[in-house]
C-alpha cells in the first residue's frame, strides 16, 4: 500500500494543475502584484461549472437515469448527514460558538466543484476510468448540507433582525438557486436533453481545452488561498487540525460508500473526494445571507486555505490509493 500511495502522490504533484496552484501560492506569499480581474475569476467559474454540468448531463443521457439514481441518493445522504457530527465536534471539542459551528459544519458537508474537477483530471492522467455521470453526485451534494447547517444555526440563535430572518423557503431558494448550484444543475439538464448530438457541436469549447482552463483557474485559486494564509492564526490550531483530519475521515467514508454502491475504483475515488472537499463558493454566500452572525474567517479560511490545498495535493491521490487498494 505504501508504494501505491507514493506512486499516486507523485503522479499528482507534477501536473500543470497542481503546479500552477503552487505558483499562485508563491505569488501571494512573495507579495507579487499578480492579480486576476474579478471578471476573469467569474468567467472561469462559469466556464468550469457549465462545461462540467454539460458533460455530466450528456453522460446521464447515455447511462440512463436509473443507473445514476441510487449512487446519487447515497451521495446526497452523505452530504446531508456530515453536519450532524461535524457540528457537535466543533461545538463541544472545538468550543466554538453554536452559530460558527453550524456554519463550518455546512461548509464541510457541502462540496467544492474545483476539487472534484482536479480529481477527474488526475484520474484521466493516470488512465483510471470513472463513471462519467459522477458529476451528478457533485450536483446533488452541494445544497443539502447548507440547508442542514443553516437550520442548525438558526435553532441556536434567538431572534434575528428581520432582514436576515429568512423563512425555510428563502433558505431553500438560496441553496438551490445560488449561481453555482444553478449553473451546474442547469447545464446538466441541458446536456441530458441534448445528448451526444449536442456534445458534437460544443466539444471543442467545453471539453478539449478544459484541463488547460483548470490549470489557469488553479493559479488564481493559489493566489486567493495564499492571501488567506495569513488569517490562519486567527483560526487557531483546533480548526487547522479539523480542516485536515475531518476531510481524511470523510474521504474514507466516501470511498467506502462508493464501493458499497457499486462504483468503479475511479467513481469511488471521486465520491471520496467530494465527501472530503469543503465548499468555498455556495456555502459562504448562503451563510452571509442566512447566518450573518457567524464569523467568515472561521469558515472560509479553513476551507480555502487548508482543506482545498490539502485535497488537491495529497487528498486526491490518497483516496485513489485507498479505492485502488480496496478493490483488489
Amino acid at each position: 500500500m505504501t508504494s501505491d500511495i507514493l506512486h499516486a502522490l507523485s503522479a499528482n504533484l507534477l501536473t500543470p494543475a497542481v503546479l500552477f496552484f503552487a505558483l499562485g501560492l508563491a505569488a501571494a506569499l512573495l507579495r507579487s502584484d499578480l492579480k486576476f480581474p474579478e471578471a476573469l475569476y467569474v468567467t472561469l467559474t462559469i466556464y468550469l461549472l457549465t462545461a462540467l454540468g454539460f458533460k455530466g448531463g450528456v453522460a446521464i443521457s447515455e447511462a440512463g437515469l436509473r443507473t445514476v439514481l441510487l449512487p446519487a441518493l447515497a451521495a446526497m445522504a452523505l452530504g446531508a448527514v456530515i453536519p450532524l457530527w461535524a457540528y457537535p465536534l466543533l461545538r463541544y471539542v472545538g468550543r466554538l460558538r453554536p452559530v460558527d459551528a453550524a456554519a463550518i459544519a455546512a461548509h464541510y458537508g457541502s462540496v467544492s466543484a474545483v476539487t472534484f474537477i482536479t480529481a477527474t483530471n488526475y484520474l484521466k492522467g493516470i488512465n483510471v476510468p470513472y463513471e462519467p455521470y459522477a458529476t451528478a453526485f457533485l450536483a446533488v451534494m452541494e445544497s443539502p448540507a447548507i440547508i442542514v447547517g443553516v437550520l442548525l444555526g438558526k435553532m441556536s440563535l434567538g431572534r434575528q433582525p428581520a432582514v436576515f430572518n429568512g423563512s425555510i423557503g428563502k433558505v431553500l431558494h438560496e441553496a438551490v438557486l445560488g449561481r453555482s448550484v444553478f449553473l451546474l444543475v442547469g447545464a446538466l439538464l441541458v446536456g441530458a436533453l441534448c445528448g451526444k448530438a449536442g456534445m458534437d457541436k460544443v466539444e471543442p469549447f467545453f471539453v478539449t481545452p478544459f484541463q488547460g482552463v483548470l490549470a489557469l483557474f488553479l493559479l488564481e485559486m493559489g493566489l486567493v488561498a495564499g492571501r488567506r494564509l495569513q488569517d490562519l492564526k486567527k483560526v487557531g490550531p483546533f480548526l487547522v487540525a479539523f480542516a485536515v483530519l475531518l476531510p481524511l475521515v470523510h474521504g474514507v467514508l466516501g470511498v467506502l460508500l462508493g464501493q458499497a454502491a457499486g462504483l468503479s475504483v475511479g467513481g469511488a475515488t471521486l465520491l471520496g473526494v467530494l465527501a472530503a472537499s469543503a465548499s468555498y463558493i455556495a456555502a459562504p454566500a448562503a451563510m452571509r445571507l442566512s447566518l450573518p452572525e457567524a464569523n467568515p474567517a472561521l469558515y472560509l479560511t479553513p476551507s480555502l486555505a487548508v482543506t482545498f490545498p490539502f485535497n488537491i495535493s495529497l487528498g486526491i491521490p490518497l483516496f485513489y490509493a485507498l479505492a485502488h487498494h480496496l478493490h483488489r
Partner: protein
Amino acid sequence: MQTHPLKLVTIICEALAAPPLQRLLAEAGAQGYTLFTVEGSGRQGQRAGEMRELANIQVEVIVAPAVAGQLLARLAQDFFPQFAMVAYETDIRVLRQEKFAP
C-alpha cells in the same frame, strides 16, 4: 437652479452583505441606490476583490434627513455587529426633490 438639501448615506461593506442591505434600504424608505464595486483596506485587512466572496462594495443612497438618521440607526443595530462595514452621511443638494421622497 433650485436645489434641495438632502443626505447622501454611504455604506462600504463586503459584497456578500448586499442582499440584506438592499432589503434594509427598501424597508427604510429609500427610493433607489447606486452600487460601486470597490477594493478596500481597513481593520479586517485588504479586500482585493478577486472573488465576490471576498470583495467589497460601496452603496450610496440619497434620502431625506429623517430617513438618513433611521437608516444609520438600523445599520448600527443590525449590521455593524455582523459585517465589516463603514457608514457615513454627507450633505448634498439635489435637483428634483420629489424623486427621493419615501
